[in-house]
């Protein structure tokens, strides 16, 4: 397995406090990785540090052996894309315009999008099944549609590695499955390496080939779902008692919640 992104002893956070305390993690080419952990464990901060949205305080990150902090930011964004939880804007851009913004890392400042850029945007829209509403304004869409548009924009960047911050958090179960199926398809067919934060442990279990469990700014455990999602690990990190059986369809761990009061 080729290591795509090597994260070595990274720490950082906001102001003086370090939220991430020395994390090392290898992301392999072709991974479909889930990052899980309780609120405040540093999942989003870790992703912001890796994607250069936040300044790193210590450690190093290498993309295919190249130090990412020495890369030009635009070049970096041609390879690594990020999908945030939700975009909200007062500006009524159309879906098409938003997706075309994914071409910005490939364009010079005053350069207008070429026919090729338009084609790449169209391709991204069709991959995410968003072609039918490409002329709508972004503020007219439902949360699920909007999420597909942000994923399409990230795909228009033609990245090798895609990060997503809770791509399913605002969605009902139908749309959650739709988005994760889409990501899985991109991972398989387009050979896109995907790393995402997930809150739902069962979704992480069902879809990811690797999971990193974060606790208090450090990696508590990483590995295959069955190695990470044990009742003991969950009890220690989430401070809650669960049962773990197997999902009869995926044969992966299935977490069953145990209410404290009945």
């Amino acid at each position, binding site marked *: 397995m080729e290591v795509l992104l090597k994260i070595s002893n990274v720490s950082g956070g906001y102001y003086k406090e370090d939220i991430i305390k020395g994390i090392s993690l290898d992301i392999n080419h072709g991974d479909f990785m889930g990052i899980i952990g309780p609120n405040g464990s540093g999942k989003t901060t870790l992703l912001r540090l890796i994607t250069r949205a936040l300044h790193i305080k210590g450690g190093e990150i290498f993309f295919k052996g190249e130090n990412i902090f020495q890369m030009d930011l635009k070049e970096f964004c041609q390879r690594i894309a990020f999908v945030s939880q939700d*975009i909200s804007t007062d500006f*009524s851009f159309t879906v098409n*315009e938003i997706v075309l913004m994914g071409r910005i*890392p490939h364009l010079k400042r005053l350069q207008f999008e070429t026919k090729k850029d338009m084609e790449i945007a169209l391709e991204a829209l069709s991959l995410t099944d968003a072609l039918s509403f490409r002329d709508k304004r972004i503020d007219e869409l439902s949360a699920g549609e909007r999420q597909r548009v942000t994923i399409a924009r990230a795909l228009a960047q033609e990245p090798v590695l895609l990060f997503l911050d809770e791509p399913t958090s605002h969605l009902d179960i139908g749309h959650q499955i739709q988005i994760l199926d889409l990501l899985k398809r991109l991972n398989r067919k387009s050979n896109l390496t995907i790393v995402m934060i997930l809150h739902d442990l069962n979704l992480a279990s069902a879809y990811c080939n690797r999971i990193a469990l974060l606790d208090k700014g450090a990696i508590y455990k990483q590995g295959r779902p069955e190695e990470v999602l044990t009742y003991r690990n969950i009890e220690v990190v989430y401070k809650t008692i669960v049962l773990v059986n197997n999902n009869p369809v995926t044969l992966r761990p299935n977490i069953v919640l145990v209410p404290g009061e009945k």
Partner: protein
Amino acid sequence: MHLKRRLSILLLLLCIVVILGLVKGAVDIPLADILLKENRAIFNMRLLRILAAIIVGSGLSVSGIALQAVLRNSLAEPYLLGTSSGAGLAVVISMIAGISKIYMPLAAFIGAVASIILVYNLAQEGSRITDKSLVLSGVIISIAFSSIIVFLVSIFGDKAVHEITWWLWGNLEVYDYRLMLLISIPVIFGIAAIYVFSQDLNAISIGEEEAVHLGIDTQKIKKAVILITALITASLICICGIIGFVGLIVPHMMRLVVGPNHKTLIPTTCLAASVFMVGCDIFSRTLFSPIEIPIGVITAIIGAPVFIILLKKGKRI
């Protein structure tokens, strides 16, 4: 409708108002006689005014567009954010201190930047800047600075009073064509610079962090854009005084017509703002002729209702 067609319609409208602007005034001169030798003085005066209106309209509108994008706030505008009154205060102080008019642009620039930093810091709640706090601090700074201006004028005023009060409400009468030409340079340069940032403004307007993930050095662009708008506003203050709401009305109307993409929004807004300002100036000169109404009064009468509608209907832009 294509951009070219929209631009040509706006260009046509501009030609019409420019001709009207040359013909109309305290004395109406028939179009055929406007180029006659005996009308040369009036022609020159009116032409300069029209040029001033075009520069002022474009500059204020593009500043509005840029501030609205980087602050991601539909209500941002040099006048409402107190930038204009900051520049105005600095100019009044330099007038009273008897500093040469050559340094007026510099003083205005310092005042503009100082007030924008002040308002920005006042509006900050944690790391966020909300609509309400931004407008509120802008208005507070505006009122405070305007009061200081009036205070200074009433103490030191005398001969300068008339000039200054006129100027506080905006005046397109070009008292020195060399100053106007000098001022046009930074304004045109500033508009061009903001146009160069179109793509960055598009990305920043959907979110600062989104822009970072598209490879844009957001902090640097934001600072650059705020400084450029301060430069434009400050320069304009020196020739036309304080004119409000232009940066709000025209960009909003043009967003409804061409959408929020800055690559098309900026050039169309420049033309539309020129039409708007030349039109307002014609009103200011002819409505109660021979009395001239300050142009800032006209833009405010049109602008205030637009502002209220925007505030009420929600801020989708």
